[in-house]
């Protein structure tokens, strides 16, 4: 049975879309048939990060409003056999997202995919609720700073009360923490919270940190999910996250400051 996974955060710009693309591509690489849906109606950019923006004809809202079929709207990734994208509409507003429609689309997708990844917009309003409402599991994307942690905490609370699973008193949505844009040097100087601090506050299972990395920018500029650049720090960190999610044991990386060598210390003073 397919699993619906919401990628959500409350706060904007923390890396939800980057994570959705990387995580979906990672699952596809591991052989799971995966679709990633952009719920950020009006500000779509998942298609850019996935490099398929020129192939968008129909979108999620067309399918919800029966203006196009799911087959017409699903875009097949050119690199990975198992990966599909369902883009958001650039021209409509969030009110066009109704829960009944979302449920119908998800049910149709559940029959064809192993994993359905829902890239949530920022905030705690309608769009974010639509993206999390039918979730079975959720990746809480958080940056190691107080405001992001606070917003994530709010989202964790909402997953426990404002979702289908909560309202129907089913087994609760399984939540996982993904800590992105982690910069060990700024953690050491106390400018940022440590992974331990964030885990202690949110009290949900931890999938790992993604380091602050130039590779993310490069990947998104060229329309490639960063997990396809497995040589990169961020790409390999995301693959670890995918593998831990799938139940593999992976030692945590990118959480210790790299000790500078003698020469760099010498030249940097």
């Amino acid at each position, binding site marked *: 049975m397919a699993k619906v996974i919401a990628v959500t955060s409350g706060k904007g710009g923390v890396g939800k879309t980057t994570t959705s693309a990387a995580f979906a591509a990672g699952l596809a690489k591991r052989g799971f048939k995966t679709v990633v849906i952009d719920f950020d109606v009006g500000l779509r950019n998942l298609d850019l990060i996935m490099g398929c923006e020129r192939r968008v004809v129909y979108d999620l809202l067309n399918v919800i409003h029966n203006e196009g079929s799911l087959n017409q709207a699903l875009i097949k990734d050119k690199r990975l056999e198992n990966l599909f994208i369902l883009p958001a509409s650039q021209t409509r507003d969030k009110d066009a997202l109704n829960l009944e429609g979302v449920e119908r689309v998800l049910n149709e997708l559940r029959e064809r995919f192993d994993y359905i990844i829902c890239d949530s917009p920022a905030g705690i309003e309608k769009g974010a609720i639509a993206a999390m409402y039918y979730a079975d599991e959720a990746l809480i994307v958080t940056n190691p700073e107080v405001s992001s942690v*606070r917003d994530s*905490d709010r989202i*964790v*609370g909402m997953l426990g009360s404002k979702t289908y699973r909560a309202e129907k008193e089913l087994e609760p949505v399984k939540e996982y923490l993904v800590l992105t844009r982690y910069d060990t040097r700024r953690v050491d100087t106390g400018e940022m919270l440590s992974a331990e601090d964030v*885990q202690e506050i*949110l*009290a949900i299972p931890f999938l790992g940190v993604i380091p602050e990395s130039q590779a993310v920018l490069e990947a998104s500029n060229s329309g490639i999910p960063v997990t396809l650049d497995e040589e990169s720090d961020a790409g390999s960190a995301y693959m670890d996250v995918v593998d831990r999610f799938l139940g593999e044991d992976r030692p945590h990386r990118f959480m210790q400051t790299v000790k500078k060598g003698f020469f760099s210390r010498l030249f940097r003073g």
Partner: protein
Amino acid sequence: MNSNSIFELKARSHKVLSLRILKGDTTTILTHLRNHLGEPGGLFKDSLLVIDLSSLETPRNAINFEALCGMLREYGLIPFGIHGGNPKHVQDAAEAGLQPVPEAFVSSTQSVAPAQTEPQPPVASTPAQDIPQEVADSGNKTVAKTVHSGQRIVAAGDLTILAAVNSGAEVIAGGSIHIYGALRGRALAGGTDNTEASIFCLDLEPELIAVAGEYLVNDEINPEVFGATASITLEGGELNITRLGEFSPVQG
């Protein structure tokens, strides 16, 4: 019409107030409340307030809680709970951020509003029938999971939390509150008048603590007890924080 036949503003301590609405639609209530309270301002600076609907003579009238709370906030009041009311009231109130609270939070002592109208005897309080089951019949309550930002847990009796209460979360009890974790949010024990109630937590970093309506906010708390395992009791009308020790959580 005399304002006092429309609502009564009461306080037990001078901290948690209750606004008992007796009848009328929102517009009438707002107009009379404004007449009664005069110009907005810091009249009730930071006073917590419960809206009491248990004596409503017009139970079918819907109440616009957003508008009511908006106006109360103009006066420096912090509406946080309702008592009584029909299921529709409870639902509308929840949307405006008000949670059903037990009777312990409703004051039955004299009116504290500016005395431009003659005091009225308090209306006998009838037990509310429509409070959600969860609150109505629970004496004590135990919660095993972290209370997250935006969540609010209410118990008529004692409340035990087997995890942390995070910043932005609120735990409220008619009796004592025991937190086996960090208190980073708000904890209000003892309703408005249970002065025997206390708060206990493993790591005190609260936004607000209150016992029987007496409260302290974060920056009023002595830095020496901040972050300590502590108990909070009411002694001689003042909050007394006792440092019990030090606690460090086990990393999981």
